[in-house]
């Protein structure tokens, strides 16, 4: 079946702009996760959804970052007033309950 998909695959924006990153999880997976991976580093946890609600958003770096999952499937990560330090690959993963996480290919965000 189809895996986790993320769009766009690449996003280039200017400092101060607003961006939205989309994640389509594997069908039927109730849990959805967002991670951020900077160059030369491992993924860093941002937020975890169980169904429609954010069960843990302790990894969001500040209030410029926000994520939603209104119908318990697709999720959108929103970043306001982007900064150059936000440049990274944003990974999404989904799982059945708290089981194995399956990762998407990521969105590479570049803030100029």
């Amino acid at each position: 079946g189809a895996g986790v998909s993320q769009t766009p695959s690449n996003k280039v924006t200017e400092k101060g702009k607003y961006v939205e990153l989309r994640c389509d999880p594997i069908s039927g997976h109730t849990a959805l996760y967002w991670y951020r991976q900077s160059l030369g580093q491992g993924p860093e946890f941002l937020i975890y959804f169980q169904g429609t609600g954010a069960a843990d958003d302790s990894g969001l770096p500040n209030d410029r970052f926000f994520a939603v999952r209104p119908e318990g499937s697709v999720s959108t990560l929103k970043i306001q007033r982007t900064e150059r330090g936000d440049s990274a690959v944003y990974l999404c993963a989904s799982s059945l309950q708290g089981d194995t996480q399956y990762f998407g290919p990521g969105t590479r965000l570049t803030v100029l």
Partner: protein
Amino acid sequence: TQLLEQSPQFLSIQEGENLTVYCNSSSVFSSLQWYRQEPGEGPVLLVTVVTGGEVKKLKRLTFQFGDARKDSSLHITAAQPGDTGLYLCAGAKGGSARQLTFGSGTQLTVLP
């Protein structure tokens, strides 16, 4: 700050050689996972180890979880060019793999 330290950070070897990658922490984890990530893709789960002292084998890959559940190692026998990739360890706390803390990764290159 990465709670999981991986070593070496980079490793370049010839086809047929053996290698070991280490993942160390001062924290105790309920389980530890190893992933492999290729350029432009998300991490793919290789194995999960749960019990202190546990050893798991996956073809030419041998994974070990330390007795105190703070460290782990990955040993590859007779490495092949197809083993090239970024190897990441990730620790989970609590009863499920919901919150993963990733190491910074070991970039392995196997030369033909």
